[in-house]
Structures are given as structure tokens and as C-alpha cells.
């Protein structure tokens, strides 16, 4: 297919379900940009899966015409892990909120990044719990008043990009739902990355953070410095825990074998050194044999 004649238009990735989001919610921007990114990369809807947890943002898979899994709160990544490992040829995209991904789902975030799982993960970070009506998230600033911190939030916040880098993600970016141009570039790059690509998207919640969040975030927007080299973990970390600025772009990018590469290597070796053809052959390995020959496989007969 030529670039002038794409088969899929952004609208082809739209489902006919109307979003339940509030008017003005940042998530609309994320959704529209995702539709465009998919069209740019000509993803086949039937070979694409969008996976999420629970939250306003996690409703997103319902608004995309691909396969979708609106899972449990905090558990998008385990589901995505199983889907991708079982069917490596599928494009798997995980999405969800900051509460979903960094509070209850924090451990899966850490380990998916560590494993360099071959998916893109788009976090729709509104610095609040939207769906449950406005409680503090781990991304909410210290001192902020929310429905669950009426005397001011006593907890420091965490930067999801910093966590991703330290956990082992090989591509880490930051975007803003109100800047669809940059966001489209970032999404496309994340979807094309080989390994775990984490994109933190600041996506305002007009209902629980007010209209001001949008303006404040926009006011803080900064691009990365000219000629920035994203290959250094240490350099990337200097653009984390920002307070007065919001640097968007590809903060970190490195090339490492992905989880599928490494599991593939294990499989290749196992199939070469000790292929098993049938259950019967497996059963035979449990019959005690006292010949002097070494047994096949990594661990010997049935690990007896």
C-alpha cells in the first residue's frame, strides 16, 4: 500500500459506542490521537488488541474497533502479558489511568518494564482518581485537597517516567493530550519500539481537577533541549520529578533484547537440544531407566 492511499482511516478505528467521558475530558484527545496513530501505522483491527484496567481512561478499549479487553482495576499489564506472549504476532497496546497503573497496578508496571515486554503502554495521567470521583492518586501533588485528602495530601507524588526508567523500560516518553501533534509522534514511535514502550500522557480531568489543570499543564510544556540524546538513563532522569516544567518528548530510548526475543531464544535452544514430540514420549521419560546414557532435556528425565 502507498502512503497516499491508506486502507484504514482514523475513523475506521472508531467503535460506534459513545464515550461516557465528561465534556472536555482530556481522554478524548488521547483517543482521537490513538485512532490516528493506528491509521498511520495501518494496524489491522483484527490483529490488534487494546487492553485496560478500570477507570475513566480504562473505558478506552470500548471506543476502538479492534479487539479489546477492559479488565480489572490495576491488571491491564498481566492480561497484556498473556496476550502478547501467547500470540506474538498481535499488536498489543495497554492503556489506563494513573491510579490504575501506578497505585494498584504498580507492581505489574515495574515487572513489565523490567522484562521489556513487547507492548506499548499509554498511561492517561490526570493526577487524580476520576471514575471514583476525585480522590488522591500517587501522582497527586503533596498538599493538594481532594475528596480523600480534605486536609491536604500528606503523601509525596511519584513520577511514572522515573519509575519506568528505573524498572527497565527501554523507551520512555511524556506527552500531553492537549498537544495532539507531538502526541501523535510519540504514540507512533512508542508503537514502533521493540520492547516495552512507556508513554505518560498528561490528560486533564475537567471534572475533579477543574478547568485550571488544563491551562496549568499547557503553561508548563517544554520540549526536550535541541540535540538531546535519549540513550542515557542518567540524563533522562534529570527530566523526571519536574515541578515547574513539563518536558515532553522521548526521554529515554535504548535497544535491548525484548522479552519475546529472550523467550524465543529459550524455546529455540529447548527445541534444538531436547524436542518432545508427544505426551507418550514425555511419559516414557518417567519410566526408571538405569542405562548409563545421559537423558535428553535440560533437567533430565522428568526431574525425578
Amino acid at each position, binding site marked *: 500500500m502507498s502512503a497516499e492511499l491508506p486502507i484504514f482511516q482514523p475513523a475506521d478505528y472508531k467503535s460506534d*459506542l459513545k464515550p461516557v467521558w465528561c465534556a472536555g475530558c482530556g481522554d478524548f484527545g488521547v483517543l482521537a490521537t490513538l485512532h490516528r496513530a493506528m491509521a498511520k501505522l495501518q494496524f*489491522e*483491527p*483484527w*490483529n490488534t*488488541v487494546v*487492553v485496560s484496567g*478500570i477507570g475513566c481512561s480504562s473505558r478506552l478499549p*470500548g471506543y*476502538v*474497533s*479492534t*479487539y*479489546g*479487553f*477492559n*479488565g*480489572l482495576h490495576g*491488571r491491564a*499489564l*498481566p*492480561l497484556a*502479558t*498473556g*496476550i*502478547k*506472549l*501467547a*500470540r506474538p*504476532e*498481535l499488536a498489543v497496546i495497554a492503556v489506563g489511568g494513573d491510579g490504575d497503573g501506578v497505585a494498584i497496578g504498580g*507492581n*505489574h508496571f*515495574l*515487572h513489565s518494564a523490567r522484562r521489556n515486554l513487547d507492548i506499548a503502554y499509554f498511561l492517561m495521567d490526570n493526577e487524580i482518581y476520576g471514575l471514583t470521583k476525585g480522590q488522591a492518586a500517587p501522582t497527586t501533588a503533596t498538599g493538594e485537597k481532594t475528596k480523600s485528602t480534605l486536609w491536604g495530601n500528606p503523601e509525596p507524588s511519584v513520577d511514572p517516567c522515573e519509575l519506568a526508567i528505573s524498572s527497565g523500560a527501554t523507551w520512555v516518553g511524556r506527552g500531553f493530550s492537549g498537544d495532539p501533534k507531538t502526541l501523535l509522534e510519540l504514540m507512533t514511535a512508542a508503537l514502533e519500539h521493540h520492547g516495552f514502550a512507556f508513554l505518560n500522557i498528561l490528560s486533564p480531568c475537567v471534572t475533579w481537577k477543574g478547568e485550571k489543570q488544563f491551562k496549568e499543564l499547557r503553561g508548563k510544556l517544554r520540549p526536550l533541549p535541541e540535540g538531546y540524546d535519549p540513550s542515557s538513563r542518567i540524563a533522562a532522569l534529570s527530566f523526571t520529578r519536574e515541578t515547574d516544567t513539563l518536558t515532553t518528548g522521548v526521554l529515554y530510548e535504548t535497544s535491548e533484547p525484548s522479552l519475546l526475543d529472550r*523467550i524465543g531464544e*529459550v*524455546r529455540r*535452544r*529447548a*527445541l534444538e537440544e531436547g*524436542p*518432545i514430540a508427544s*505426551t*507418550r514420549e*514425555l*511419559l*516414557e521419560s*518417567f*519410566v*526408571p*531407566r*538405569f*542405562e*548409563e546414557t545421559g537423558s535428553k*532435556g535440560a*533437567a533430565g528425565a*522428568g*526431574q*525425578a
Partner: protein
Amino acid sequence: MNEVEVAELKSDDRTITIVGAGGDGVVTFGDLLAQSAAHAGLHVVLTESYGPQIRGGEASATVRIASREIGAPGDAADIVVVLRWDDFERFRGEIAFAPGALVLHEPPADGAAIPTLDTPNVRLVPIPFAELSRGAAGSPGARNIVALGVVSQLLGLPPETIRAAISHRFRAKGSERMEGNERALAAGQAVARDLAPTVDLALSSAGGAPRPLLSGNEAVAVGAIHAGCRFFAGYPITPSTEILQFLSESLPRMGGTVIQTEDELSAIGAVIGASFAGARAMTATSGPGLSLMTEMLGLASMAEIPTVIVNVQRGGPSTGNPTKTEQSDLWHSLYGTHGDAPRVVLACSDVEDSFHATVEAFNIAEEYQIPVILLSDQSIGQRKQTISGSALEHEVVQRALPSAQDLEKYERYRETENGVSPMSVPGIRGGEYQTNGLEHDASGRPASMYLTHEKMNAKRYRKLWPIRESYRFFRRLGPERADLGIVCWGSSLGAVREAVTAANARGESVAAFVPRMLYPFPKKDFEKFLASVGRLMVVELSYTAQFYRYLRSFMNLPEQTRVYKRSGGKPLTAREVEESMTTLFEAPVTRAVA
């Protein structure tokens, strides 16, 4: 899959127990004896028990060897090998002696007294294992081989097999070690020859071809592979870890994938994801892990995703007794997770059954798009047992994919008569849908109206009826009509079978019903069973009598119903069952657990 057995009386059937300290080679003794017997074509069950030490503490191994099929570990030892009396004390509560049992023991140091044993007619035979080992191999380290010489000779196992087993085991250790072992073995055999005139423990019938010897956990893993499982996600936990370990070695050799996840929530999450993507997928765990999988179990039920969860029970609650058996995860398996969440619960009763039950778990999960919990327990999962060569035949059922017509306007959760809707998987063009743990309509979209909820609950539960009809498996033991009926489940089958056989041989009239599918329950068959017996005895290893309470919840039990239940911690024995057959019906009914 139903099975009606009329078991025969135990004969040509020996149980040998050995106890010693860490480093005494107790486990090696058990392994070698069990493998040699299996190699000789005999039927074998091997169990082990350990103290709290991570490694190097006291240990015991029990090997039961018989010329007929056996379904349970030996519960009363015909031969007990005591390498040290101190360690014997640690296992005293777990070792029962058969009447007239032979106790081959290291003489106590410095003439210390031998503890009194409460079984009558036990015959104590002092054998200086350590000294014989020193003489033969230059150190006491081969005392277990001396003991193996004595025991194998007394049982009449082929000496060349024993020798081959030993040499295979120590092949990496050099020829000097091997020669020492040979001499130690010979020293033991010589002791046995001296004893022979007064001991008659030889197994009369020789076996046939070598038999596979494997653990229940391994049988589960082999069953999964047979059923087409090519994705496994798990997290280590005693006593289920061997499933993860075996599959992490074997599945890649068949092109499959194993991932050890960060925790059990993630393990079952990955399994559900893989299954959503079309793979036959499984996880395995024990109580604490099953508890952590609770929320995800509900997701699999709600989103109707085939999911196989093997739970190898251990002592509970909480971290409990990780290395001991119990049957107390039944309630959680039946009732765990919030909301009305249909699932299927199966139970396996021994090693061979672990294979079959695993294949059934996959068949039911895939055919009915439902989570299936297979309950095993420590005493099945970690025992080693011979299985029949023909064991590994079992039909495999596939998931129903949408037809071309279904795909014209695909609805993932379309209403159907039996509740099963064709399930599309990624890659199928036109079958795209979004699934959901939220209540949803036929297309999978979130829907909170109460009529939709009622309709969808009905759809999901409707699937249980055809499952109950088409998978009515259970075992029935004993005569067609009996005074006493016993109902039990899972690993209790072994002890109950022996008790039933013995009782009928004594002229009593006892039958037993052992469901292999616990939910949905084979109610009609059980009703038939109840109609054929007088009194009923429920047998289980759970302090609160979970099985009995469960049966009551949907069935009226005979007025003369008694429950033999106790906490786990050691496997059920035939002796307990036999004793309670009479004592329970004589004693007044005591108050139940609140």
C-alpha cells in the same frame, strides 16, 4: 467417565518407612527403592516428610510396593528402618506399624533405651548400619545403601536392578564411590539372608514391564501438555511448585511458553489474557495463591474466558502448614470471589487421576468458556506413584469459534440455549469485540440495567447444566447395596477404598461414592447411591467439615448421617476410616463447629 469399582483385598503389598537425620540419605533410599520396584514392574507409592529445616533436617520416606494396583500411600509399615532414634521421635505421630512389623534399627548409642512403641508384636532387629557402612565404604555415609541391601533382599527385588539403580544414581561420583556402594549393598543383602528364615516379606508375584513413576504434580503437567496447553504462568509455592518447574523445562521443548510472574494475581491475569488470545492456558498454585487469584477468578467467570487453575492444597488457613496435606480449600474453590460467579470445581484422587482430571479441566474450560479449578493436594502432588502405561489416552475437546454466519454480525455474548456463545479470538476478521468485567450486553458492552444483569447471570449459570449432564464423573466402590455408604473426595479415595475393601472382606457391607466433579455436583448419581445404602458417613480432612456442609446445602442427607473429619497435617489412613465406621454411629452426636 464414571467408574464403578469392586476393589480386591490387599495382598502382596508391603510398606517400608525409613527415618534419619539430614545427610543420612533417607530420601535417596526412598528414591532408589521406589525406582527399582517400578523398574521391576511393581506398583509403587513413595511419600516423604521433613522437619522444619530448609535443608539438612530430619526426614522420613515411605515406600509402598505391591503387585496389584494401589491408590494410596502405605499407612502401616511392615518394615521400619530407623537410622537414628532421635529422628524417629520427630515423626512418631506420623508412623504407624503394621501388626508384627519389623523394625530394623541402628542400635542406640551408649546403650540408651529404645522408646516404647505402642503397636503389639513389633519385632525389633538391631542392625549396625553405620558400622557396616564404615566397613564396606570407609565411612558411615553409605548406611542408606546398607539398609537398601537389607530391605530389597527381604522383599525379593531383583538384585541386578538394585545394583543398576545405585550405579545410575552415583555415576557422576567416580568408581571408588561406586565400589564402596557395591560393598555396602552386599553387606546389607548378607544381613537379610541371615534374617530370611524368620521373615516372610518377599513379594511373591514378580511384576511386568517397567512402569512410569511420577508425582501428582508431574502428572498434572503431563495432562496439561496432553490437553494442548502451550501457555503456563505461575508463581512458586509449595506444594505445587513442581508443576511450574516441570513445565518451564518441558513446554519450551514443545514450542510452548512459560512465564514466572511477579505474583499470583499476575499469573492468573496472564493466563486469562493468553486464553482470550486463543491459547490453552493454565496456572497452578496452592491456598495462599488461590486466595490472591480471587478477583481474577470472577473476571474469568464474568467475561467467560476458559481458565484452568490447579490448586494443590496444603494446611491452612493463611500460610498454615505449607508441606502438609489438607482438604480445606473446598469452600473457597466453590464460593470464593464476590458476586454470583459460576465456575467448575474438579478433584483428582491420585497420580494417574491427576492426569485425567487435568485433561478434563481443559476440556470443560474450553468447551464451556468457564474457569475450572482442579483441586489436588500435597499428598497427591508430592507423592510419587506408578501409573499404568495406557493411562495417557484422553480425548481433547476444542473451543467453539464463530462460524462465518456468526461473524456477519458478531455478538460475543449472544444468547444461546446452553449459554455457550461462539468465542472469537484476535486474528479473526469480523470477530472484533471488547470484553468486559463489567456487566455487559450480548455485544460485550457495559450495561447496568437490572434486566440485562438477570439475563446475563442466567446465561452464565445455564452452562452448568450441560456440564453436569455430560461430565457426570464419580467413582462408586463396593457392593451394589450396602448398609453403610461413605462419601468422600480427592485424596481420601485411597484410604476409603482400602477401608471399604477390608470391611467387605470382613463380611460388613460398605460402599463408597467419590465424586470427581464437585461443582456442579453429580446429584442424580449421588441420590441413586444414597438410595442404595442405609447410613451415610462423610469423610474429609477439614476441621469445619466443608464437604459435609456443602453437600447439605443442596441435598437432603439420610437421617443417619455422620461425619468423620479432622484437620489435615497427615494423610487420611484406612485405619481411621475403618474405626470411625463403627465408633461414629455408636457415639452420641456432638455439637458441630459453629
